[in-house]
């Protein structure tokens, strides 16, 4: 394909390598400073299936470094907004957006569907969750983390290599480390580190040698200097993760994604493109809502009616006041329809907004 001609002409990639990319799947956890650049290159490279999980909304202070988003994305979910931009960049691949938080309860389910996990999160809790879930699932993690002008990159759990716990056994105490929102970060830094992560992902998919496993790359943007620190596998720490597997699995409730559904305001929902509203109230419930892109499926029959829902659209469920619609969103996500929101305030908030639009 012409799209990938500059890859295919490389003897190290060729048509076989490009095919490997097109059949690979990568989950990017966090569509923030690291996730945005990594996603752009993975999508452009033609990685066949990309997952994006992020429950956060785009804020103005993100735009300095989270380059998939623009002013028009403010207030929208990052995973969904990223998917929209990336689908234009490369419509030939599959992109699954999960507008939810990765948690112990859903991590194994969600991550198990992907070959490689890219850690672009911004907190230790999720980093250790990803590391442990990846160990249990025997999947490699491309780790990236930043602090002001400095970044760290490594590949963990790759072909018997060390894990993040072999480097730092446990998360630091709460006050020990601050995040970007508190301390600031040079905008271009996550761009560099996120691209390094994407590079390691592509090397692994292509089966190239010298994957950044067993060493930590420390980059300093001020001096453009890199330091490599060797990391040895610590069997005791890895064994401990497997020993505590039952605790992890207890938190993990079968196939249910027990996660907080993402809510959307009436204002944002009415502005959204490619939207499908689902009125999940029982027939006859008031106020009556008439919208062109609205179908009626009562909550009780939603699960049987999944096939009627176009999963390519942004789904907004609503009930009377916005409580039952959260259940509907959880149900849809369990059924692999991830692009969905619960309408805040429900039909009671929607009715006056529609009336003022008609005026």
């Amino acid at each position: 394909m012409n799209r990938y001609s500059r890859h295919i002409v490389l003897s190290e990639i060729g048509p076989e390598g490009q095919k490997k990319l097109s059949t690979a799947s990568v989950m990017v956890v966090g569509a923030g400073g690291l996730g945005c650049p990594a996603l752009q290159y993975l999508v452009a490279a033609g990685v066949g299936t990309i997952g994006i999980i992020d429950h956060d909304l785009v804020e103005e202070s993100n735009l300095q470094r989270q380059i998939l988003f623009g002013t028009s994305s403010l207030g929208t979910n990052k995973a969904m907004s990223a998917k929209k931009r990336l689908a234009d960049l490369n419509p030939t691949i599959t992109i699954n957006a999960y507008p939810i938080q990765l948690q112990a309860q859903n991590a194994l389910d969600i991550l198990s569907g992907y070959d490689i996990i890219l850690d672009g999160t911004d907190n230790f809790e999720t980093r250790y969750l990803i590391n442990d879930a990846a160990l249990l699932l025997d999947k490699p993690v491309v780790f990236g983390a930043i602090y002001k002008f400095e970044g760290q990159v490594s590949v963990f759990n790759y072909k018997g290599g060390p894990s993040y716990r072999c480097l730092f056994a446990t998360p630091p105490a709460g006050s020990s480390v601050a995040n970007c929102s508190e301390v600031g970060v040079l905008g271009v830094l996550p761009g560099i580190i996120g691209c390094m992560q994407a590079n390691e992902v592509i090397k692994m998919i292509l089966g190239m040698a010298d994957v950044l496993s067993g060493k930590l790359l420390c980059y300093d943007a001020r001096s453009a200097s890199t330091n490599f620190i060797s990391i040895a596998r610590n069997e005791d720490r890895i064994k401990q993760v497997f020993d505590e597997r039952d605790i992890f699995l207890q938190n993990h409730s079968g196939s249910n994604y027990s996660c907080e559904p993402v809510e959307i305001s009436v204002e944002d929902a009415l502005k959204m493109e490619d939207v499908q509203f689902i009125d999940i109230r029982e027939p006859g419930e008031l106020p009556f809502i008439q919208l062109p892109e609205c179908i009626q499926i009562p909550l009780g029959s939603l699960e049987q009616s999944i096939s009627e829902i176009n999963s390519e659209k942004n789904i907004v469920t609503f009930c009377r006041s916005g409580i039952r619609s959260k259940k509907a969103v959880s149900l849809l996500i369990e059924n692999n329809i991830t692009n969905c929101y619960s309408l805040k305030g429900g039909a009671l908030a929607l009715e006056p907004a529609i009336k003022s639009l008609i005026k």
Partner: protein
Amino acid sequence: MSTNIKYFGLLAEITSCREESLGNSPSTVNELLELLFEKYPDLKEKDFRVAIDQQLVTEDTQITGGEIALLPPFSGG
């Protein structure tokens, strides 16, 4: 023999330098940490790993020269 130390991330903010040379030459990592904690009491509150010549070491490791680095975990993304 002097000991050359590199500080990464927020550790460099505590020490107010990214690199320095210690006049004394501690014989173990433990001794080194005692010296540093005395000089920079705030370091005690921080989590970090010590590397000598790009290899992670433990507190009882002997120091026989080489470049020392103090690495904190980063969480940002």
